[in-house]
């Protein structure tokens, strides 16, 4: 019985093939646009958060209770091993990453700048901000560029890009390849030479040994290179003066320009020494196993139970409030734009339904006259509309998916002036795509709602149908 209904509904759709197709096409258009745009938006937000979390805050931190609002050296806490043992015994905590952060004035002779000093345990940071991975491996110095151009026969566009990104440092060859827009086949030929000339020798810092890692942007500003010394002056524990001079062992490239231009990493104990802070820490960041929202929230709760009173647990949202706010604003504005689009399409669908109902008035009359229940007629019309919506959704998804998959492999990277603007605002100049996720389902829901509302009209007509009048139509 049901298949009969469905057959009827399906065949009815194709009575007016053009109209059905155009209406389904409008739904397709909206779904395609919405899905691709959401993928881009959500993907980019993810990258932005990831950069902030991984460059700096981590997902969860434990701090002295007053530290976040008042980031002074005096608001630090002693990190006893009993606390460490308790924390690491939690099921979701893989490693604890201790840090000592403060502010200092850095000078290199003629230049001075306020910098962020982070005392870290380089081994443990591998889990979190992965600073060791961000050591610069390649730098396109003017000389390197000259040498590359001399030896290789480079395609025009890569040549232009080389000029554009001159002086940029790269922590990995992949990013270098991406920025120069070199395809994977070209890479085989070009990359080895580029890597040869752009190679940059970096060094490590170790616990117990004085030495510093400096951000790429900062190193340029202070005109310091590996082997040079950097002088740090700041305010130490209980108003003592903190002063020290350190040899630069390595240069790191952080994705967030804000950090890249200001960061100095010292070994944790050296840093604690500098600020006369004994074995105190400003924060312990946690490397977690499962980082989805629920898991983080649960872990935070468990931490809250576990730690002594004078300490406090913060999650990444609290630590990145400004970013959360900016992203929310963009998110909402994106949703509104898509909303307007869908609203426009909804009216189009409604128009089609209106026309179709008017045309078939007589037919409805005949059907009810010969004995079809209105309910049944209503369900057939409903099926027709749902099919039409489904057609549009499927078409939209089928076209969107390859686009998104391609985009995931090839994110949109910005260069030149435009990139500078992103960086001025503190963002990495890249837009990434989000994979297939719940936002796809949302489109289905919206289209379903659209169809259901549009159905109101024909269903109303059917149930209030006076056969006699309809037959006269």
């Amino acid at each position, binding site marked *: *019985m049901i298949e009969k209904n469905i057959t009827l509904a399906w065949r009815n759709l194709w009575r007016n093939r053009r109209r059905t197709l155009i209406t389904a096409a409008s739904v397709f258009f909206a779904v395609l646009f919405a899905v691709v745009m959401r993928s881009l938006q959500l993907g980019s937000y993810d990258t932005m958060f990831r950069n902030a979390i991984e460059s700096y805050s981590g997902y969860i931190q434990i701090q002295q209770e007053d530290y976040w609002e008042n980031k002074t050296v005096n608001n630090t806490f002693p990190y006893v091993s009993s606390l460490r043992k308790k924390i690491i015994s939690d099921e979701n905590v893989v490693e604890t990453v201790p840090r000592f952060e403060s502010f200092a004035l850095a000078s290199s002779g003629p230049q001075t700048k306020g910098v962020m000093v982070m005392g870290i345990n380089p081994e443990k940071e591998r889990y979190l901000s992965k600073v060791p991975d961000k050591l610069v491996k390649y730098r396109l110095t003017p000389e390197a560029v000259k040498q590359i151009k001399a030896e290789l026969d480079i395609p025009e566009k890569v040549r232009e890009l080389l000029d554009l990104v001159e002086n940029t440092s790269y922590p990995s060859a992949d990013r270098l390849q991406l920025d120069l827009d070199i395809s994977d086949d070209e890479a085989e030929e070009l990359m080895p030479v580029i890597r040869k000339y752009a190679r940059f020798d970096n060094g490590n810092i170790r616990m117990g040994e004085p030495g510093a890692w400096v951000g790429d942007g900062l190193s340029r500003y202070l005109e310091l290179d590996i082997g040079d010394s950097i002088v740090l002056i700041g305010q130490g524990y209980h108003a003592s003066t903190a002063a020290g001079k350190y040899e630069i062992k390595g240069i790191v490239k952080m994705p967030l320009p804000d950090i890249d231009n200001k960061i100095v990493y010292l070994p944790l104990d050296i840093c604690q020494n500098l600020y006369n802070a004994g074995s105190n820490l400003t924060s312990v960041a946690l490397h977690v196993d499962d980082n989805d929202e629920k898991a983080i929230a649960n872990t935070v709760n468990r931490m809250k139970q576990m730690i002594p009173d004078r300490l406090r647990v913060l999650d990444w949202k609290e630590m990145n409030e400004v970013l959360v706010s900016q992203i929310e604003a963009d998110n909402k504005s994106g949703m509104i734009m898509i909303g307007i689009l869908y609203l426009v399409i909804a009216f189009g669908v409604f128009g089609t339904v209106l026309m179709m109902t008017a045309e078939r008035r007589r037919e409805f009359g005949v059907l009810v006259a*010969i*004995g*079809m229940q209105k309910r*049944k007629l209503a369900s057939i019309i409903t099926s027709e509309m749902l099919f039409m919506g489904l057609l549009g959704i499927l078409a939209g998804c089928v076209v969107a998916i390859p686009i998104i998959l391609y985009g995931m492999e090839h994110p949109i990277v910005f260069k030149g002036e435009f990139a500078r603007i992103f960086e001025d605002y503190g963002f990495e100049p890249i837009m990434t795509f989000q994979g297939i996720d719940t936002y796809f389902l949302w489109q289905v829901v919206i289209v379903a709602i659209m169809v259901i509302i549009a159905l109101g009209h024909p269903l109303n007509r059917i149930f209030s149908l006076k056969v006699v009048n309809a037959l006269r139509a």
Partner: protein
Amino acid sequence: MKILEIKDVHKIYNSSEVQVHAINGVTLDFEKGEFAAIVGPSGSGKTTLMNMIGGLDSPTRGTITVDHTNLADLKSSRLIDFRMWNIGFVFQSYNLIPVLTAKENVEFIMNLQKWDKKDRDHRTFELLKAVGLKERAHSRPAKLSGGQQQRVAVARALASKPKFVLADEPTASLDTKSSENLLDIMEELNREEGITFIFSTHDQRVVKKARRVITLEDGKVISDERKKKNGSSS
């Protein structure tokens, strides 16, 4: 056996200023096996009366009883069901569902009545054979001529084994040959299977074939003639 009783039926329309007495006191009985035509000029109330007989409209006064059931006692969905089981319809045009084939149109009612496949198929082909369209069973209405469409409509109307078939101007859109054809088939069905047909028409050919002619004028029955078997009127 009376299958349809119309007792003192009135239909009054109240439009803004004027009261229209479309049917003004009609009393008629119909027996099983009749082949009757209701005639009259336009405005005589033919269509109104037909609609009421078919349960598509309700009388302002009076009763219409089909097989001992007063149509007024049935409310909306019960009424629709009743029509499905008891009354067959053939309209002047646009009888068929355009997206279904002839066969599917005929079995449509049987589907609603939940016949099982074997019985359904069997009866469908029988009916299509009876109206002479067995070979066009899988064609859609668009591919059939006007006359063929009407024949399918008759087959469809009969599919549910109704108490009687109401045909409102069934030949109005047809040319002479097709009309003849259609009428012959209906007459044969009436003769062989005893199916009751009630027409409304102003086509003289139909009137000639009918065995009972009821004439309406201004909402009243002004003559009700039954013809004898030999063709002359009583």
